[in-house]
């Protein structure tokens, strides 16, 4: 952990690009595309959350609140205030980022895991507000969301589009969008990790006191990365709202926050590619386990426990390390 690595970004990004480009070949129908789109959107949240958990060593137990914040803000702004989806998404991101800043600013001056408790509270409050303010949010029954449109062109999941003479379905176009967004999210995250901010974060993850002694304003950097990860969640939430066309308070639930943290831990903390795999696994497992309805939660728990016991660093870092040892 103590060694500060400099990443060579190009090979990883190229590999990610190839995987994202090849993945559609495995998709036999629109349902497979649907899963891949959800994996991409969830992975965006996970990549953002990983910056906070994996690099700054802070745990957020309320990221579902930021995700839901983006989703609900996009839904309400487009529906009630005639915002176009893109400005709505940006407004949502600014609002969610500001909220994270307000919550994080006093808390992150403290040492230890106070952020976990604050975000836990924030997440629970967000879920209660969304559930109870049914005049605005539709309450537990949920809220319909308008399809995404970019510069006047509507991108409906159900449409079909002519593109350079090729016909492409709305779902496929959505996959391109989600995969593109994920690629962008990863590229930004990798750049951030190699920036002075990223180095400062790794320093403070190693030892907060040592970082402070070295002149790192730890509170400032922690706050900054917390806000960034909240914005990641907000944007992914906005995209999800437009994609699914219907949102319910479930997305703000504590369970969803835990799911996001699980993805990061499972895939591998401080491994940007690992958490993408984590997202894929977590979203695919329930689809495989449908045959074992009653046992689904048990099997799910057992898989997670097995990973935690035998691969405590997460899937990808453990496997990568094993490869390295063999190569050496």
């Amino acid at each position, binding site marked *: 952990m103590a060694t500060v690595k400099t990443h060579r970004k190009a090979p990883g990004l190229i*590999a990610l690009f190839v*995987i994202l480009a090849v993945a559609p070949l495995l998709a036999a129908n*629109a349902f497979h595309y*649907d899963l891949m789109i959800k994996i991409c959107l969830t992975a965006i949240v996970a990549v953002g959350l990983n910056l906070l958990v994996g690099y700054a060593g802070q745990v957020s137990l309320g990221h579902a609140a930021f995700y839901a914040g983006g989703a609900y803000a996009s839904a309400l702004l487009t529906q009630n205030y005639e915002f176009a989806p893109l400005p709505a998404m940006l407004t949502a991101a600014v609002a969610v980022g500001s909220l994270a800043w307000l919550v994080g600013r006093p808390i992150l001056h403290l040492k230890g895991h106070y952020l976990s408790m604050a975000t836990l509270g924030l997440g629970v409050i967000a879920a209660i507000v969304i559930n109870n303010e049914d005049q605005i949010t539709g309450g537990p029954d949920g809220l319909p969301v308008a399809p995404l449109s970019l510069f006047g062109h509507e991108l409906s*999941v159900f449409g079909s589009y002519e593109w350079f003479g090729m016909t492409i379905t709305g779902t496929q176009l959505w996959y391109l969008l989600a995969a593109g967004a994920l690629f962008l999210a990863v590229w930004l995250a990798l750049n951030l990790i190699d920036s002075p901010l990223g180095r400062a974060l790794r320093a403070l993850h190693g030892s907060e006191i040592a970082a402070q002694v070295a002149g790192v304003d730890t509170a400032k950097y922690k706050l900054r990365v917390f806000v960034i990860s909240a914005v990641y969640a907000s944007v992914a939430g906005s995209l999800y709202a437009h994609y699914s066309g219907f949102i319910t308070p479930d997305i703000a639930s504590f369970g969803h926050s835990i799911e996001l943290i699980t993805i990061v831990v499972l895939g591998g903390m401080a491994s940007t590619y690992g958490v993408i795999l984590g997202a*894929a696994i977590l979203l695919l497992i329930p689809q495989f386990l449908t045959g074992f309805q009653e046992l689904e939660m048990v099997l799910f728990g057992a898989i997670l426990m097995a990973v935690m016991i035998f691969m405590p660093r997460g899937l*990808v870092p453990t*496997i990568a390390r094993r490869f390295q040892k063999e190569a050496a």
Partner: protein
Amino acid sequence: MKTTLKQLAAGAVAALSLGLMAAPALAADTIRIGSFLSVTGPASFLGDPELKTLELYIDKLNEDGGLLGKQVELVHYDDVGDAAKARTFANRLLRQDRVDIIVGGSTTGATMAAVPLIEQAGVPFISLAGAETITTPVKKWVFKTPQSDRQAARRVLIDMKERGITKIGLISGTGGFGASGRNVTKEIAGDMGVEIVADETYNPKDTDVTSQLTRIRGTEGVQAILNFDFGQGPAIVTRNYDQLGIDLPFYQSHGVASDSFLELAGDAANGLRLPASALLVADKLPKSDPQYQVLNRYKNDYEGHYNESVSTFGAYAYDGLQLAIRAIKQAGSTDKAKVRDALESIDGYVGVTGTYRLSADDHMGLDAESFRILEVKDGDWALTQ
């Protein structure tokens, strides 16, 4: 080198996992009924009896030779009460399993999340969830079997009017069910000549509502009190009502029409009235009642097979399945447009929940009269009249 290795590993796992998901071979000679229900999770009290009912009657159907000479296959997924998962599973039923009809959706959220996909795919869908928004405005492919809370509120107000009550106090939970019930009650009360003179709410997790009840009791002219909610809230309201010794007529909604409410509320429930499915009093109905047979057959089948007491939620699935079977029989095929048209033309199917008269303008087809007004007497349900 390190990152590429990571990538290779990640890619291999991802490719493997997607490869495993290849579509299952579709058996062409079965009729496939798809379903997504909240069998586990917070809404399991809905999904569990619904799934059991579907399984029981599809087995029975197959024993009796199936439908249109084919065996019927149930393709079911558990959405855990999560609308996002319900949407994913609905997509799977539509795109991968390619089912002929869907009977499912335990909660309004799960149903509504799936509706856009279903409308697009053009597959008949019979929802088992309550809210009015599901079939109002009418959606081409979407039907539902439970009454909306509007019918329940109307049934209560009709009974009040018959007893000469025109001024009532309303107390409701702030959860989805209570809030929606409160809205429709306020909407229709005026037209029905009932005035809501007091309107109190409580949080579903509150453990005491005596202050709200005291305020209602203190309101001038109040003649009866209606509590609209489900879960444990109404049991608390009922107990507080008894503790305060309020002697006004007391009404609950259909949300508590189950035996577990009687256990929770105990003796305090005696004397209260509520609109409910006739299923709760199946054995007390006169034999001349048009629903007598179907109610008792369902009750005996279910209780005989599962050795647990029948619930009105399972009955929604029973009616949904029977409607689906009727429509497919009538259409003579599983052609989706024909089955949809057949569903819309069902006029007078006597089900467990009520008598369905579906039409192009009404995809639910039940009226307020499908609810019976029951009174709690000596800790048990009794028919009024």
